[in-house]
């Protein structure tokens, strides 16, 4: 079983829809939770990061973490065609020498139709 599970999609929604992207995880030692957006043939771009449980909002994006359920979500309000990308969840534990290792989900491919 993978440490991080993410529904690969693909997910297709009309412009203006609310999008919900989710990941579940099994390692209770994860402390930092991130969402990255990756456009085709580009490197991942950090969207949001949260520490421990709770919500964090940034414009049209809201990240939600529920550590008791080992479940994280990213909500996109008023989705736009420019939001079409692959969204990766990532979580961090520890490597040697205090470098934190990110464990990634496999990504959800989102298409927002105009």
């Amino acid at each position, binding site marked *: 079983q993978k440490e*991080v599970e993410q529904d*690969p999609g693909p997910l297709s929604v009309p412009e203006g829809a609310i999008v919900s992207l989710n990941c579940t995880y099994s390692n209770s030692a994860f402390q*930092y939770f*991130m969402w*990255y957006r990756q456009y085709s*043939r*580009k*490197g*991942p*771009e*950090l969207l949001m*990061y949260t*520490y421990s449980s709770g919500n964090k909002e940034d414009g049209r994006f809201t990240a939600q973490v529920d550590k008791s359920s080992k479940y994280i979500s990213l909500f996109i309000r008023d989705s736009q065609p420019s939001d079409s990308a692959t969204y*990766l969840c990532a979580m*961090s534990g520890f*490597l*040697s*020498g*205090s*470098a*934190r*290792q*990110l464990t*990634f*989900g*496999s*990504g959800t491919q989102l298409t927002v139709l105009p």
Partner: protein
Amino acid sequence: EADIYQTPRYLVIGTGKKITLECSQTMGHDKMYWYQQDPGMELHLIHYSYGVNSTEKGDLSSESTVSRIRTEHFPLTLESARPSHTSQYLCASSDSSGGSDTQYFGPGTRLTVL
């Protein structure tokens, strides 16, 4: 926007050639990472470094090697490329001073070995 650069962006090369993928960052980050990503698959950590003259292997076995002689530079070398090395290689860096070790990614090098 993160200042992390990778060259070349695309490389097509024959079996048996030695190649070096370049990664540089101008943010003064102490930690750097190399990931491998196949299409539609999750990122896998192959190497990381938490400072000059430190390198470690990641959780995905790789025949590549890395060096960290300068803070800003983290090249990856394949002594003898094979078709199985065909993949996208992503470099990232992070700053441990803020606590989150949020990783910022370069645009990637797409390697094809014929």
